[in-house]
């Protein structure tokens, strides 16, 4: 099967009648069936996808202008509500839940003619860095089936590299788009906090949750960001978008001041990853970027901040799964309290329980100040260090992860070791700044990801320099 064209080209050809949406959907569904051994997909949305494709082809035939994503198939992480489709967040407690409405993100993509063909696997409730915490199955890395795809958007990243669809949606709470992008060799974009509405997406940690695309190129990511961005009355945390299109990637790399983050280039970094990242930075210098080293002294504490704030918000957000209103409800119980206990204990997997327990602890009376409030205050310190760095720098650069994809099973018995995988991604979430992972070479056949970060709301500038850097790295 030939690879997908750039997304804008697919849409243009559908609009021109040179490609049929129905054939593109068929191609995507066939690829999903052919690559089932990678377990990237939980379920297809075949019936609705074929119906929508036929309707789009009909609209094209009648001379109607369909939109910028006309007939483009895509895959949504299974924590996005897609109308009429089962939405499980890869958890047993939501198995059988059928979305009665849909996410604003899905609405906006559909309004431009895109077609959701399937729901991708994830760590249950997006809790994880390897997609091994899915209650249903373990997704395999497209480059080596014995390796993890990263997580939690591992199904989405694998799907894009396996060419199951031109793009996929993910969510990023502490690195869950960028890490799998790095491990699978995709482009993963985490926007400024609030740029894209999260209405209709299963909440994890609300003060850091963002949604974004996984694509094969920065240009494709920019188009999807442009369609998704903007305020939504259904998500009161949304911020106004840039008036210029995010597809206007004219900001140049030449002359840009870029800081190499010292704390990310330490001994903990895999040697092969370091070599690739240093080589990429040299190319950026040669292209005219002014590169210096920068230190953010509080960065090493970011992961500890994250693993207090995230479980605290998780324990709060997951309290809604009580077995009464939707989701799994334990049979043969006598009282409502017994129903809560049984439904949650049987319905939640181990990682969800672990995070609920930590969150309950750090929020409980007597510990709140020492843990949660302290973490939120260190978060302020970290934000101030980012602001200080961005007074003199346009962007920050470093690796996305300390290593390439690890073996399936390597970290499952050591949750703390698994958490350390996120060490280079969580700070952007805590500060609400945009960040992107782009492919920067391979080490022993496995992709390395380069991470670029920018100040809040500088999404277009970040996409521009990422696009220029992608060209340099070829």
């Amino acid at each position, binding site marked *: 099967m030939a690879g997908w064209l750039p997304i804008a080209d697919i849409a243009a050809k559908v609009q021109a009648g040179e490609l049929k949406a129905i054939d593109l959907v068929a191609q995507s569904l066939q690829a999903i069936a052919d690559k089932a051994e990678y377990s990237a997909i939980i379920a297809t949305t075949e019936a609705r996808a074929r119906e929508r494709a036929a309707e789009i082809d009909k609209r094209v035939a009648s001379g109607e202008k369909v939109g910028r994503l006309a007939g483009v198939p895509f895959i949504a992480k299974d924590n996005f509500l897609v109308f009429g489709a089962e939405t499980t967040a890869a958890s047993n407690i939501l198995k059988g839940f059928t979305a009665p409405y849909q996410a604003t993100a899905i609405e906006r993509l559909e309004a431009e003619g895109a077609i959701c063909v399937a729901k991708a696997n994830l760590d249950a409730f997006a809790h994880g860095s390897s997609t091994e915490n899915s209650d249903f199955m373990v997704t395999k890395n497209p480059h080596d089936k014995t390796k993890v795809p990263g997580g939690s958007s591992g199904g989405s990243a694998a799907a894009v590299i396996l060419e199951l669809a031109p793009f996929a949606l993910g969510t990023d709470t502490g690195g869950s788009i960028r890490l799998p992008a790095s491990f699978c060799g995709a482009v993963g974009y985490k926007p400024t906090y609030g740029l894209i509405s999260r209405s209709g997406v299963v909440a994890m940690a609300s003060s850091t949750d963002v949604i974004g695309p996984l694509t094969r190129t920065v240009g494709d990511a920019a188009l999807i960001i442009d369609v998704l961005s903007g305020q939504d009355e259904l998500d009161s945390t949304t911020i106004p978008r840039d008036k210029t299109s995010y597809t206007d990637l004219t900001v140049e790399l030449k002359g840009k001041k870029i800081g190499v983050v010292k704390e990310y280039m330490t001994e903990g970094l895999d040697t092969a990853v370091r070599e690739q990242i240093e080589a990429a930075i040299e190319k950026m210098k040669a292209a005219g970027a002014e590169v210096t080293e920068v230190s953010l002294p509080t960065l090493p504490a970011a992961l500890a901040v994250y693993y207090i704030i995230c479980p605290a918000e998780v324990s709060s957000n997951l309290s809604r799964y009580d077995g009464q209103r939707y989701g799994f409800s334990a049979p043969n119980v006598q009282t409502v*309290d017994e129903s809560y206990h049984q439904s949650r204990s049987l319905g939640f997997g181990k990682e969800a329980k672990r995070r609920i327990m930590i969150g309950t602890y750090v929020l409980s009376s007597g510990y709140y100040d020492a843990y949660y409030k302290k973490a939120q205050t260190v978060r*302020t310190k970290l934000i101030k260090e980012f602001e200080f760095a961005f007074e003199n720098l346009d962007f920050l650069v470093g690796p996305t992860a300390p290593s390439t994809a690890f073996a399936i099973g390597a970290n499952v018995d050591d949750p*703390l070791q698994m958490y350390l995988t996120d060490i280079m991604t969580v700070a952007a979430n805590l500060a609400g700044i945009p960040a992107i992972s782009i492919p920067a070479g391979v080490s022993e056949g496995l992709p390395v990801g380069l991470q670029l970060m920018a100040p809040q709301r500088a999404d277009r500038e970040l996409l521009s320099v990422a696009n220029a850097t992608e060209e340099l790295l070829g």
Partner: protein
Amino acid sequence: MADLSRDDVLKLARLARLSLSDDEVAEFSSELTAILHYVEQLQDVEVDGLKPTNQVTGLTNVMREDEVHDYGYAAKDLLKNVPATEDDLIKVKRMIG
């Protein structure tokens, strides 16, 4: 500072409405202790004069008019995922006594 005993774990589980097996209690008591020890590095971070951050983009009190918006959802469709209903109401088990 925080070594979680079996009783601590059981108390937390009760607060979180979780029933844990004996194996889970043992496992969580060592895993959660390790995680809490890791995050305790924050106690050494100097934060004098800084306030906690709860919202990163500076938004406060986003308001809208208090009026009904019709999104076209029928109550019966929204009730389809409810485990037990009676006359379009959510039915739960006995709450008192």
